[in-house]
């Protein structure tokens, strides 16, 4: 199953086109912004909650991300809108963790690039269930690294500690896992 290009289904069943809505948001259309919120607030909140594990903080980050979207709508032009939104949310959640760190020497991962890459468009049409199924077909140790790496906001050193795996093995497994996902998603996107 593929989703329609760049579209998301809102809780009320309506389908929205993110690129079209973002064009309206750039024209300061608050109704379009509300439609974007309805379509994507669960994604933003979900990513923030997985990184922060705290509902109140996740709401703070959700608010920050959406108000930034309203104030700087030019930051997204093309690519995978929900994927871009997830990157931005992860970065803001890590900002919050960093600001609250009791020990400044604690290591956090570098922020992910927030540019809207045209290359990301290749999988922008995929339904999230397809991505989840592809993740589910990875070996457990591969899926754990990918999910903890993205949604846990962990460095590879911390991933090695958490999974009791040698550092070099962690990075090799990350690459193997992402390569497998690429092949799986390419197959769906081409189909």
């Amino acid at each position, binding site marked *: 199953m593929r989703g329609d290009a760049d579209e998301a289904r809102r809780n009320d069943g309506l389908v929205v086109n993110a690129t079209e809505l973002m064009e309206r948001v750039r024209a300061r259309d608050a109704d379009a*912004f509300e439609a974007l919120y309805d379509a994507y607030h669960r994604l933003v909140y979900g990513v923030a909650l997985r990184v922060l594990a705290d509902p109140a903080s996740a709401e703070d980050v959700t608010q*920050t991300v959406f*108000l930034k979207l309203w104030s700087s709508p030019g930051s997204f032009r093309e690519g995978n809108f929900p994927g871009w*939104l997830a990157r931005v949310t992860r970065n803001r959640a890590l*900002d919050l963790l960093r*600001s609250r760190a009791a020990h400044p020497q604690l290591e956090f991962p570098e922020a992910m690039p927030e540019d809207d890459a045209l290359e990301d468009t290749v*999988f922008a049409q995929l339904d*999230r269930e397809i991505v989840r199924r592809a993740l589910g077909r990875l070996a457990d140790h591969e899926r754990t690294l990918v999910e903890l790496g993205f949604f846990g906001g962990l*460095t590879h050193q911390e991933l090695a500690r958490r999974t009791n795996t040698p550092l070099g093995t962690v990075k090799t497994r990350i690459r193997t896992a992402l*390569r497998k996902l690429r092949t799986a998603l390419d197959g769906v996107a081409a189909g």
Partner: protein
Amino acid sequence: MNAHDEMLDNVAAYALGALNAGEAREVVVHMRTCEECCAEYDALRPVVSAVGSAGESDAIPSPLLKARIMKEVRAQGSRAKRPSLAIPYALAAACLLLAAGLGTVVVEQHQTIAELSTARRVAFAQGEVLVAPDRLYVVVRGLPAPPPGKVYQTWTLARGAKAVTPSVTFTPDEHGDAVVAIPASGATTAAAAISVEPAGGSQQPTTKPVAVIPIQSS
């Protein structure tokens, strides 16, 4: 495994966002001159974006959150022809109204402008800091855009501390304006500072601060 295979593994870890700042910089520098690693990154980055896009959970935020956000959005749309500030928190927006002398306005998050009217203001060259009981609101105006790949980062120095603590990063809007809410108490903070740092922030300042703001005790 040869050294370049290891670099390809590092590229994958970078694509996933699992490298620290120093390691990430090494990968970025390497990719400037390595087509193979660039191609690997271009292949893996969309995968990571797809993984992120599947991050929706069953949990949902409070409906009040939407109300707060839409209230702010519609207020910004109606009160200014000028594009609005990037405001991290609704309360910070209220601070800005206060700073502009726009009177008493009830805001969300259990505080009012009337309460904030007692907040101390500490002016500095690029703006001012409003010292609230549990947060510092740094209001900047006319800051130049940070260089590509860089952001502004705020820092706090606790009273008696010898080293600063990293805090929120931000990028001002096209006018150089921003309001930044720092989770720090004015009662225990000796100073705040702003510096230019690599995107994602640093654990210690890597450039000379553009502003150092002493937070005098009241």
